[in-house]
């Protein structure tokens, strides 16, 4: 991947912060999907919706760099989603079109309160990333001021 830097500095820091923002935004999308499907008893595969968790992985920004510090700088990537296999709530409702042989309907394992808390956490993490970028920009401005 082509990028703007060869040593750890202003630009590598910005890229790392931006990766965090992207990851948190992806996480918020996943949470939105969970909330929207909180009562989906029959998904595309015929089974009830199971809540999704984001999978985050670390990857170095510049593994081939000559600089030892830069080799250890990692950005985050939302590499995939993982379905939570826990069984959801079973409700006795024989009249429901998705009821099983015993008359129970399995609802998704989505807890709205948990999802809202996760949403707030992701939102705070996003804000922290924005603060990081603003901080980096301020440092760059200070460095430029040296020359004036």
């Amino acid at each position, binding site marked *: *991947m*082509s990028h*703007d830097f060869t040593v750890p500095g*202003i*630009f590598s820091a*910005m*890229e790392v*912060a*931006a*990766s965090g*923002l*992207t990851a948190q*935004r992806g996480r918020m999308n996943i949470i939105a999907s969970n909330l929207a499907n909180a009562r989906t008893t029959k998904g595309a595969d015929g089974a009830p919706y199971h809540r999704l968790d984001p999978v985050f992985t670390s990857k170095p920004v510049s593994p081939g760099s000559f600089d030892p510090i830069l080799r250890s700088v990692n950005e985050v990537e939302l590499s995939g989603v993982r379905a939570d296999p826990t069984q959801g709530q079973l409700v006795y409702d024989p009249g429901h079109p998705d009821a099983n042989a015993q008359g129970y309907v399995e609802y998704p394992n989505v807890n709205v309160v948990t999802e809202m808390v996760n949403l707030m956490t992701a939102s705070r993490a996003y804000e922290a*990333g924005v603060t990081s*970028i603003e901080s*980096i*920009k301020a440092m*760059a*401005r200070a*460095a*430029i*001021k040296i*020359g*004036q």
Partner: protein
Amino acid sequence: MGLLDAVHALQAGLDYHLARQNLLTANLTHIDTPNYKPVDLERGGDFTKVLHVALESTNPAHFGTSAGASPVDHDFRVVADPGAAVGLDGNGVNVDREAAKIAANNVRYDALASLVSGELTGLQWAVNDGKAG
């Protein structure tokens, strides 16, 4: 080594970053456009030599230079951004990545602007025979 070589090198850099800012801003405005792929600006030339290549307008992707417009020659190419992951609507723009690129580009532009100003002030001082004015 001409007296204004450093100034021209900096001016070329400023031209590049300004042109790039245009492209990156366009990326950001097309964040919801289906099938839009983000673009970026690359500059060619050997990184060990200062760029003073006469531009032949044989390739339509090259920026043209109107005769006598500037003492600086350009060799910029608009390229498709290789890092873009495409979404369901075919749109490949990542808002955070573009915003970070814009911020970084802005920083480089400001740094070069500050340097060129300092360079010209220094030359002016020398021209005034080492006295203020």
